[in-house]
């Protein structure tokens, strides 16, 4: 009797162990399936994050009501002197000169990806200053945008303005360069006296500067924006293509 009871108990234990083993195997199979599904879900999440990152945080740009990255631009330029359209120490040995159009998408990429390295490196370090010359080649809206930047420069905010403009740039010649948009950029750039800036930007005094920049670009053989050269006491390095930060740094050393 006791023996049969023990046998039944043993059989029950065996069955429980078998069921547990089967259950464990099932869970492992399910975990592998979940793992594969999870890896796919993770890949999708990463792709979404990348798309959001590449799109500049969801804003398509050119919106007066959605000006972004003012803090980033301010942080990038904090503590660096500005004199009109020149950033950095005016007595620095070398000068980086950029010919750019505010509406130019390649200038936007240069402003966001290469210029920050130059600003945080040689410009902040005092090895070079950085001059931006508005070269208006994209279309009619380039002129008011450049005038607005130069007017901001009258109050020491040229680089804040042009940097913020690029970060919020819309589609070229789409009509986004409105008074509201430019005013929103000016406010985001920290222009102290908006009324004065508004008067300055509408002045005809910038026309001669635009004409002069256009002539200089032609003399240098430039064909598009952004075009860059580096000038120093030992010569000038003119780039025929859009340079990398490393190439500009090397040019600064060679002309200084």
């Amino acid at each position, binding site marked *: 009797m006791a023996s049969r009871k023990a046998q039944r108990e043993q059989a029950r234990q065996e069955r429980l162990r*078998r069921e547990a083993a089967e259950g464990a195997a099932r869970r*492992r199979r399910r*975990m592998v399936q979940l793992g594969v599904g999870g890896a796919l879900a*993770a890949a999708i*999440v990463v792709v979404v994050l990348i798309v959001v*990152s590449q799109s*500049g945080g969801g804003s398509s740009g050119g919106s007066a009501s959605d000006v972004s990255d003012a803090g980033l631009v301010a942080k990038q330029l*904090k503590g660096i002197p500005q004199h009109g359209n020149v950033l950095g120490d005016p007595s620095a040995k070398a000068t980086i000169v950029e010919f750019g159009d505010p509406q130019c998408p390649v200038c936007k990429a240069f402003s966001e990806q290469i210029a920050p390295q130059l600003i945080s490196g040689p410009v902040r370090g005092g090895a070079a200053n950085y001059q931006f010359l508005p070269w208006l080649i994209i279309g009619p809206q380039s002129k008011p945008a450049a005038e607005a930047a130069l007017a901001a420069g009258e109050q020491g905010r040229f680089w804040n303005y042009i940097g913020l403009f690029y970060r919020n740039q819309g589609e070229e010649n789409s009509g986004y360069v409105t008074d509201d948009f430019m005013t929103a950029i000016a406010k985001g750039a920290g222009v102290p006296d908006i009324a004065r800036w508004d008067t300055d930007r509408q002045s005809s005094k910038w026309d001669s500067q635009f004409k002069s920049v256009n002539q200089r670009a032609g003399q240098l053989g430039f064909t598009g924006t952004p075009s860059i050269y580096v000038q120093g006491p030992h010569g000038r390095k003119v780039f025929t293509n859009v340079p990398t930060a490393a190439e500009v740094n090397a040019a600064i050393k060679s002309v200084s």
Partner: protein
Amino acid sequence: MSGARGRLPSERTLRVAGAIIALLGIAVATYIAVADASRGSPVCLAGGHGCETVAQSRYSHLLGINVAVIGIGGYVVLLGSALAGGDTGRFTGFLAAAVGFGFSVYLTYLELFVIDAICQWCVASAVLMTLLLAVNATRAFGYAGAELAAVADGGAAAAGRGDTLG
């Protein structure tokens, strides 16, 4: 199956390692986030302007939120999954580590080929996230269903590997 598992570190070891690495990740990401919020940029310990350049790039923020803050959230989830037992903890840890690793690969690509600057703190975070993926994948696929397996093995040996950190 138990033979294969026998070659793996114990789940307790993996969970302790996962918790320690996640804590280090929280520390790194918190430093970057605090530096961004106060002085402006994290400082590269080996010198150079790489950290500043990366912090000032447009890629340092996602929907207006500093990527380091998002990183803190990810590491906290990974810490929680290391502390949590069972398949829920294993699967959550694997999923969070996979997302974190994928995004770290993207950010490292940006540093190398787009921003053209290397931030040591970001590299440190990417290394930690890679280690967390290895730890959590090993835990998830090596120890799924470990509780039932322990019953099937008669309890003592497998259960002794521990499912708690205490």
